[in-house]
């Protein structure tokens, strides 16, 4: 058990280092950092001095080590575009994105899993076919289009919900939350549904496919041959076996919600990190891009780790045979 955790931790760290390398390379090789920071009329001598001061003449490895050291402290330098510290910018925007993502993920799971199970168990019912048809449409709708349609219906036509911004927020320490105000909650509805819908349809289809696969196995056949009640078979055996592989994939999906938030934030002008990132890409604001990258990688790695640990806890085969432990990726 300990060996397993240690190994996964080491893997995670190496992934972070690789991402860090990419982020760092962005700094060094994409455009000239000096050019991005100073005006055009700064003399060459000043530039050379600045270069020396910032340590840009040191060896690659030294610079990289410095970068990593700074990164672990949350120090990413100053945004080219806004001139403010990147860490401050991120801290301001992070709560918005996290609250949105969490709400969307919860929604996707709470609705997606039961629907997926239902369509797996009752394959031929008209409701199942309807849900599947809708889920197919859901997968074909790009997230931004869903957002636009929802805005059209609920903001423009019906006028029930706001289409932009986050509403009023309450400041708790450095965290600003929209959960505690009515306008904050109302502003959360459309973006959360938009963000969660795509994930939800994916979950429905995934759970259904897994369920169908499980229902075809020999142990289900044997359970039937033993005369077990349908409820015991479907919810005792089939469900548990379905959910185990679903955990991994869903976990990874949840990580990607944070990235998909980029689109939703653009559509709804939600003041989160995604919006920040878009603006950074358009402007080639390297520090922000690098910081965002590292942060997202960190979240992914943490989620992956948790999923692996969960898997380990749920699947008894992994506990004994350590050789299997690392190898289930999709």
């Amino acid at each position, binding site marked *: 058990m300990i060996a397993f955790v240690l190994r996964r931790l080491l893997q995670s760290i190496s992934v972070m280092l690789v991402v860090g390398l990419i982020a760092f390379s962005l700094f060094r090789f994409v455009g000239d950092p000096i050019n991005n920071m100073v005006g055009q009329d700064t003399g060459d001598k000043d530039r050379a001095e600045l270069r020396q001061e910032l340590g840009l003449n040191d060896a690659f490895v030294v610079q990289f080590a410095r970068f990593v050291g700074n990164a672990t402290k949350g120090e990413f330098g100053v945004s080219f575009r806004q001139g403010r510290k990147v860490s401050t910018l991120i801290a301001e925007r992070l709560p918005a994105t996290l609250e949105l993502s969490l709400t969307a993920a919860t929604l996707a799971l709470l609705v997606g899993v039961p629907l997926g199970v239902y369509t797996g168990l009752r394959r031929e019912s008209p409701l199942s076919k309807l849900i599947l048809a809708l889920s197919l449409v859901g997968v074909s709708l790009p997230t931004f289009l869903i957002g636009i349609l929802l805005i059209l219906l609920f903001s423009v036509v019906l006028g029930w919900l706001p289409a932009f911004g986050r509403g009023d927020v309450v400041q708790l320490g450095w965290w600003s939350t929209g959960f505690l105000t009515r306008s904050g909650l109302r502003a959360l509805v459309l973006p959360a549904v938009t963000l969660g819908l795509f994930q939800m349809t994916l979950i429905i289809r995934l759970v259904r496919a897994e369920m169908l696969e499980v229902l075809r*196995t*020999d*142990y289900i*056949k*044997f*359970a*039937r*041959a*033993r*005369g*077990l*009640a*349908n409820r*015991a078979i479907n919810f*005792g*055996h089939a469900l*548990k*076996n379905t959910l*185990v592989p679903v955990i991994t994939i869903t976990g990874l999906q949840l990580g990607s919600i944070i990235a998909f938030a980029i689109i939703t934030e653009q559509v709804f002008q939600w003041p989160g990190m995604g919006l920040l990132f878009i603006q950074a890409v358009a402007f080639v604001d390297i520090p922000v891009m690098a910081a965002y990258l590292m942060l997202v990688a960190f979240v992914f790695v943490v989620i992956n780790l948790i999923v692996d640990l969960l898997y380990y806890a*749920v*699947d*008894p*085969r992994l506990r*004994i*045979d350590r050789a299997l432990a690392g190898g289930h990726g999709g």
Partner: protein
Amino acid sequence: MTVPSNRPPLLQLEHLRVEFPSRHGTLTAVDDVSFEIAEGEVLGVVGESGAGKSITGAAIIGLIEPPGRIAGGRVLFEGERIDDLPYEKLRRIRGKRIGTIFQDPLTSLNPLYSIGRQLIETILTHTSLSPREARQRAIDLLSEVGIPSPAQRIDHYPHQFSGGMRQRVVIALALCANPRLVIADEPTTALDVSIQAQIIAVLKKLCREHGTAVMLITHDMGVIAETADRVAVMYAGRVVEVGPLREVVKHPRHPYTVGLMGSIPTLRGSRARLAQIDGSMPRLNRIPPGCAFHPRCPRAFERCEHERPELINDGPSWTSCWLYAPLARTGSDG
């Protein structure tokens, strides 16, 4: 219709017919199959892969996968018809009065649950024992099938057992509610040869002790020879011969059975070469008219090509071969 025995039949199959509609036409996997199993008796059902043995077993307990369906005939268990029962009634018979053993013990057990959980769940479904009593019964069953240290191993998971041990667990699961009949579908095929004998011994012992009848489906004549009281030989979805074990093995009537017995390698006695039946069993959608075996039969004659033979009595055996029709007997063998 079948061999008269001095005990009332536990299971009766009458003209059972199982069809699978498909794009290429309707495939008849089981075609007019009739036989009986008496209480406590072991009937071996033998034949090549694809002869319809497993499907017959599945049909008895109503586990044919759609679009397959029972298209004709009747299945009677303890005198009552069970092929037309609604799902719930049939479910109550499964496990409790008819047990089943499948071929692959690894995939028959849910890998995420301990074997104790799977045993206790089955016991609780079919009996009115309390959970604690059920657990004790499970432990007793495990020791009956020969699992060492059952009180500890009951909480282990399937992957922690070897193949032979797993199949013993499967046997325990099939027998835990004390059924009157067990359908064993290729119970030893997936196991090492050295383990096969052990498993068969366990099965035999338990069934003898509890008076359970067995329908032993296999393509391995060696297993049949060890275990069965009577044998039914199937070919292309039909029964070609039924009779007591000694009769069928020593005095096979049907030419297919003759070929089957002749193709068994034996350590005793010298045989110059293994006999072999030319050709292969026809595919289900290309079954020849008349007797299904006639294209490969060394003794086929004109009647075999047009008329499908029914089961004809010849001494203690029954065989579906025109060679044994009362008037056409040429007295060539016995």
